[in-house]
């Protein structure tokens, strides 16, 4: 029953209370709860598909990558650690890696090597003890408060997966301007996250 209300609570098109996402993750990890997994899928599936389409995937390819990403989520869900980051950021990294492997014909191996390192690392990771939910709210706020020109560059980089020099060409800006807007946007995010320490 518990899972049922969560499924209803997380609507496809709204930003959910992030605690609900963390709860879903622990239900999926602990109980292999398929209703919880469906709720997670209904939330992230359409977003991952939009990301892949904007990155240049054909519709059927985007659909297939959504499936591959969510299969990875199902398989690796027990590795998600809320103290390290939000559910959205974790799923973004899986989508990013799939984009590199499937869409760019590259290799995401370097990223998974770093993940492995963190898993075997014995040091506690809590430089900051932010809860995932606080973190998500802070990030959303930081993004919404960015000046339009910085926000646009962040979206191009993360959503459309184009490089700094391609962004510079597309927006007819000097490369240095693109880089400095990226640095400014990142500095604002860091400030927001450090606030919570």
């Amino acid at each position, binding site marked *: 029953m518990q899972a049922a209300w969560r499924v209803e609570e997380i609507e496809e*098109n709204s*930003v959910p209370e992030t605690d609900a996402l963390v709860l879903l993750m622990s239900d999926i990890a602990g109980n292999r709860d398929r209703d919880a997994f469906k709720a997670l*899928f209904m939330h*992230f*599936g*359409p*977003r991952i*598909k*939009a*990301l892949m*389409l904007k990155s240049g995937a054909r519709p059927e390819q985007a659909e297939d990558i*959504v*499936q591959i990403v*969510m*299969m990875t989520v199902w398989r690796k869900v027990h590795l998600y650690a809320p103290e390290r*980051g*939000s*559910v*959205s*950021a*974790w*799923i*973004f990294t899986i*989508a*990013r*890696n799939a*984009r590199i492997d499937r869409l*760019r014909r*590259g*290799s995401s191996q*370097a*990223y998974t*090597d*770093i993940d*492995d*390192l963190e*898993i*075997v690392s014995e*040091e506690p990771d809590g*430089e900051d003890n932010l809860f995932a939910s606080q*973190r*998500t709210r802070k*990030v959303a706020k930081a*993004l919404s408060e960015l000046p339009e020109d910085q926000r646009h560059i*962040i*979206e191009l*980089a*993360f*959503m459309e*997966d*184009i*490089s*700094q020099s391609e962004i510079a060409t597309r927006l007819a800006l000097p490369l240095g301007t693109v*880089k400095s807007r*990226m*640095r400014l946007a*990142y500095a604002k*995010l*860091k400030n927001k*996250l450090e606030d919570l320490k």
Partner: protein
Amino acid sequence: MSLDHHLDDATLLQYASGNLDEAFTVVVATHVAMCDTCRHAVRQAEELGGGVLEDAGTAELEVGSFEHLMLRIDDQPADTAPAACVAQVSGDVPAPLVRHLGPDLGAVRWRSIAPGVRKHVIKQNSASKSSLYMLHIAPGMAVPEHGHGGSELTLILSGSYTDVFGTFRRGDIADLDEHVEHQPIVDGDLPCICLVATEAPTRFKGFFSRLLQPLTGI
């Protein structure tokens, strides 16, 4: 490890968003493996990815998409043993580089390309326009003042060098763009071994590629 020289934030964001090419990704990941500060910073940058994923729109899934997914999941064999974990390999080569180089720096096969300079090219899986290679530079060797034709990342794996930006030791990274001019000198009695990614130059060769040009024709 406490390091002095880190990644430029713009490079870090590019790495987090996944749009560096393979050569640059490997060098950044190798530094990140050696640097707690940058590992933390990458996670923060990935939060931006999460934020963008949350509010940059949705696309309608095909009918029956979830059911199809569960069929695929049920079809898969139960998880086999996880792939060999490179993180646990002991040696002086950091994790992301082990699969390209093996675990020991001592086992790298160098090719002498100029007096005091040896090189080892790392094969890339994807067709990348950037080059990825290691250099082994003799102590005391000074490199003429030079600029860069494109971005260049240099990660120190052993020994050290000093230039106008300071001294670079194991784990430190020099993240330089085309506008930078510097003159590195290898310090002490040990050779400096570094991992380098250079962008395909537009006008001039990058520092190390220029150094190598006479003999390799790159």
